C-alpha cells in the first residue's frame, strides 16, 4: 500500500526465461474413498505453456485448488522458484504471484471492467485513483494484445471479454504464473483464437501459463510447449507437445483406444407423445425468450434442439417441465393438456427432466447419493408407506443404479459433491431414466463431460429409443445433435429456424440456421 510501483512485487518478479517457476513434488490428496491426487510431480518454467490434461475426475480440479491454496495437500511439497512454500489460501497464492482464471468467471456484472480489475487489488490506497489505474491497465493490455472497453459494465461484455477482464485482473495483481481452468469452454471459435494469441504473448513475456483442459485436445496441441496427462489421480504421461498427437493424448487420457462408438439401431417411430403449440415464455429478466415454438415428438424419436446457449433452449425445457410459466401456447402430453399442471404432476404423468445445471438444480451436493436418488422416490408407494421412507430399500436400489450406470463412487453414502461432473451426470441420468419416463427432456446432457462419459450418456439416450421413449435433446454440439437426432431443430432467438429430418440436415445447413441465417 505504500510504494508506487506499477505492479505488485513478489517472489516471482524479474523471472528469466527458462527459470523453474513452480515445482510440485509428490503431491497427494485423499478424499474419503478416493485418492484425488496420487504423488503428482509437475514443473513449469518461465516462458512456458504447460498444459494439464485429464478427464473429469482425473484430479485436475484438486490439483488446481492445491496450487491456488483452496486445499492443502496431505503429502508432498510445493516449490516456487526453488523455495519451499505453504499456500494456505488464495491470498497467499496471489501474494506469491500466482493468478487464477476460473471456469465459472468470478466477476461482478454490475461493475465496470476497470472496477472488476481493481477488485481485491492489494495496493489500492484509501483513495481510488481510477484514471491512474486505467492508464496502467491500458499499458498492460497493449503489452499482451488485449482489447476490452474498460468503462463497459461487465454484463454488457461477452463471455470472452469477461474472461479477458479476469486475466487482466490476475496480471495486474502481479501474477507471473497463470492458471486457467478450461479456458476455452465458454468461448466462441473466434474468441478462442484471440485467447490463444494472448496466451502466447504472455509466454513470450516470460510468464508461465498452466491451462487445465478436459476435452479440447486441439487447443492443447496448438498452444502448449509441454503437456502432463492425468488419469485417476496419477500422472500417466508427460511429453513435449511436438511429440504428441490427438490420438496419443486421447489414449493416455482415457486409458484405451477411443473411437466414438454410437450404437444406432433403427427404431420405428410410433405415436405422438408430445405436442407443443405456439409456446411463448419470458426469461428471468422478463424479456421474451420463447417466441412461438411448435413441434411434436413421437415414441422412439429423438428431437434435437440445437443452438448457441441463451436462445431460449433452457426456457423451453423449463416450461415443458413446469418450472417456468408460459405466456402463451399449449403443451399436449399423450393427448392430455398439461400446460397448467404442477411440476410434480408432470413427473407423475411420465415426463422426466435432466437439467443442464447438475450442481445447482439436478442434485443436492451436501446430501448422500442415496438421498440424491431419493429425490425422485420420496412420493413413490414402492419406497414410502404411510409417509415413512424405506431407506434400506432406497439404498439397495441406489446400489443397483450406481453399478448399472457405472457411476464411480466409493459408496452410496458418499456426498454428491464428491462426485466428478461426469459421474454426477450419470447419477442424475440414472435417477431419471430408471423412473421410465415417456418423455425425457435432456438439457445439455454431455456438456463438459469427458470422452468416456459422453459416449456413455449418448448411448443411454439412444437406448431409450428402443423403449419407445420420446427424447427432447437440447445440445450446443452440432455433431451430437446430428448424430443422435431423428429430427433437428436449430433454435435462434426463441424460434425454431426450421425442423429438419435427419437426412435433410447437413452440418453446413444447420450451422447456418442456428446462427440465424436463413438461405433462400
Amino acid at each position, binding site marked *: 500500500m505504500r510504494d508506487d510501483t506499477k505492479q505488485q512485487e513478489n517472489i516471482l518478479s524479474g523471472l528469466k526465461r527458462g527459470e523453474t517457476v513452480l515445482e510440485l513434488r509428490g503431491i497427494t490428496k485423499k478424499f474419503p474413498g478416493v485418492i484425488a491426487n496420487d504423488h503428482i510431480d509437475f514443473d513449469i518454467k518461465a516462458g512456458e505453456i504447460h498444459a494439464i490434461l485429464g478427464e473429469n475426475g482425473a484430479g485436475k480440479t484438486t490439483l488446481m485448488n492445491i496450487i491456488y491454496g483452496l486445499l492443502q495437500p496431505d503429502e508432498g511439497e510445493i516449490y516456487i522458484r526453488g523455495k519451499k512454500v505453504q499456500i494456505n489460501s488464495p491470498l497467499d497464492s496471489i*501474494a506469491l504471484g500466482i493468478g487464477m482464471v476460473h471456469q465459472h468467471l468470478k466477476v461482478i456484472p454490475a461493475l465496470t471492467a476497470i472496477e472488476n480489475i481493481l477488485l481485491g487489488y492489494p495496493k489500492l490506497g484509501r483513495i481510488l485513483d481510477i484514471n491512474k489505474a486505467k492508464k496502467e491497465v491500458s499499458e498492460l493490455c497493449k503489452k499482451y494484445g488485449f482489447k476490452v472497453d474498460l468503462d463497459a459494465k461487465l454484463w454488457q461484455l461477452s463471455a470472452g471479454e469477461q474472461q479477458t477482464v479476469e486475466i487482466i485482473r490476475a496480471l495486474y495483481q502481479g501474477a507471473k504464473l497463470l492458471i486457467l481452468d478450461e479456458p476455452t469452454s465458454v468461448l466462441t471459435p473466434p474468441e478462442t483464437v484471440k485467447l490463444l494469441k494472448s496466451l502466447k504473448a504472455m509466454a513470450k513475456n516470460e510468464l508461465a501459463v498452466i491451462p487445465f483442459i478436459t476435452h479440447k485436445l486441439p487447443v492443447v496441441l496448438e498452444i502448449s510447449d509441454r503437456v502432463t496427462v492425468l488419469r485417476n489421480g496419477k500422472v500417466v504421461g508427460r511429453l513435449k507437445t511436438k511429440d504428441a498427437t490427438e490420438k496419443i493424448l486421447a489414449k493416455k487420457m482415457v486409458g484405451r483406444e477411443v473411437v466414438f462408438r454410437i450404437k444406432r439401431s433403427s427404431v420405428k417411430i410410433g405415436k405422438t407423445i408430445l405436442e407443443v403449440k405456439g409456446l411463448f415464455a419470458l426469461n428471468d429478466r422478463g424479456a421474451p425468450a420463447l417466441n412461438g415454438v411448435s413441434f411434436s415428438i413421437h415414441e422412439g424419436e429423438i428431437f434435437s434442439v440445437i443452438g448457441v446457449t441463451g436462445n431460449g433452449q433452457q426456457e423451453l425445457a423449463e416450461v415443458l417441465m413446469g418450472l417456468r410459466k408460459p405466456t402463451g401456447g399449449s403443451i399436449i402430453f399423450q393427448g392430455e393438456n398439461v400446460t397448467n399442471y404442477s411440476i410434480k*404432476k408432470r413427473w407423475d404423468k411420465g415426463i422426466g427432466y435432466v437439467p443442464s445445471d447438475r450442481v*445447482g438444480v439436478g*442434485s443436492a451436493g451436501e446430501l448422500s447419493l442415496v438421498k440424491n436418488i*431419493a429425490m425422485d422416490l420420496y*412420493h413413490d408407494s414402492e419406497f414410502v408407506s404411510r*409417509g415413512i421412507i424405506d431407506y434400506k430399500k432406497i439404498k439397495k436400489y441406489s446400489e443397483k443404479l450406481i453399478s448399472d450406470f457405472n457411476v464411480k463412487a466409493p459408496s452410496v453414502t458418499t456426498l454428491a459433491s464428491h462426485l466428478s461432473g461426469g459421474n454426477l451426470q450419470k447419477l442424475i441420468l440414472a435417477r431419471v431414466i430408471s423412473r421410465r419416463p415417456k418423455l425425457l427432456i435432456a438439457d445439455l446432457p454431455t456438456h463438459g463431460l469427458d470422452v468416456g462419459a459422453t459416449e456413455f450418456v449418448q448411448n443411454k439416450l439412444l437406448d431409450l429409443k428402443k423403449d419407445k421413449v420420446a427424447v427432447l435433446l437440447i445440445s450446443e454440439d452440432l455433431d451430437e445433435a446430428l448424430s443422435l437426432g431423428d429430427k433437428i431443430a436449430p433454435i435462434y432467438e426463441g424460434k425454431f429456424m426450421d425442423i429438419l429430418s435427419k437426412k435433410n440436415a447437413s452440418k453446413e445447413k444447420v450451422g447456418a440456421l442456428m446462427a440465424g441465417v436463413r438461405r433462400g
Partner: protein
Amino acid sequence: MRPRLIRREKYGAFDNVKIVLISMVIAFAILSIVFLQANIDPFKGFGQIFNFAFATNVGLFLTIRRTVPLLLVTLAYIIPAKGGLWNIGGEGQLFMGATFATGVAFALPDLSPILLLPLMAIGAMVGGASWGAIVGYLKGKLNVNEVIASLLLNYVAIVLVKYLTWGGPWGDPKGQAESGPISVNAMLPKIGNTGIPPTIFFALGFAIIIYFILKKTSLGYQIELYGHNPKAANYVGVSFLKISLATMIIAGAMAGFAGFHQLSSDTARLRADISPGWGYYGIVFALFANLNVLAAIIVSFFLTGFIVGNTMLQINLGMNFGVEELFIGVIMLCLVGGQLLKRYRISFKKIG
C-alpha cells in the same frame, strides 16, 4: 504474525462439539471477569450456579420444569431451520398458545381436568400453529421474508395479550396488567411434590416424534432436501408452500404448547410477561444443539439449569438484578461468534 481465517475443507460433527466447547470456555472466561470485578471468586460463582441448578432438589426440579417451555421453543426453531427457514416467531407463537389456552379455560371453567387440560393443550397448539401458519403462508405464497414476518408477529401477539388483559375483556378487575385466574380445574397437576407437571413427558415425546419425522418420513426428507438445495427440491416437484406451511405449523404448535405449560403450571393468569423472552432463547439453544433434535434435549436441560442457577447470583452473592441476562447474552455472543469457525479455521502461519 497476524492471525488469518482459512477456509475449512471438511467439517464434521465432532468439530461442532469442539467449537461449542471452545465458545463456552471463552464465555466463561469473560464471565469470570464479571465475577472478579464484583469481588467474587469465579469458581465460587459458577459453583453456586451449577450446584443449585443440578445438585439441589429445589433447583433440579425447577430446572426440569423450566426445561419444558425452553425445549419446545428450541424445537420451534429447529424444524423450519431444517428446511432453510428462520422462525424468529417462537415468542409470539408461545403467547398465542397461552392466549388460546386461556380462552378455552375461561369458556369451560368447570369441565373436569381430564377433558379440560387436553382441550387447553390442543387449543394452545392450534393458536401457536395458526400464528406460524401466517408466516408459512406469506413465505410460501408471496415470498414474504419469514424473519421479518415472524418477528413482527411476536409484537402483534404481545399487544393482543395486552389488549385482552390490561383492563380488556379478560382483565382482572382487582389486579392490574393480567387476566383473572383460570379455574383450579385448568391447572396442571404436579408429579409428587416435585412441582414438575406432566408436560415434561409431552415435551420429550414431541422431541422424539419430531426427530422421527425429520429422519424417517417423506415429509422430513422433503424438508431436508429443501433446506439443502431449494432449486433441486423445486425441480423434483416439492412444493415450497407445503414445506413452509408444514414446518411453520409444527413449529407454532410446539411453541403454543409451551404457552399452555406456562399458563397452566406457572402463572395461572394470562400476562404480557408470561414468557420473559424465552422464544428468543430457543434460537440460541437450537444453534447450540447444531439443529440436532436429540442434542436439543440435552442442551435445553443444561442451559435452562444455567439460567435457573443464575438466580443464586442475586440471592446468595448479592449481585445486581439483570446479571443473568448479561450472562446469557455473553454465552450467546460467544456461541454465535464461534459459528464462524464452522467454515473457517484460524491460522497463525506466515504466508509462503
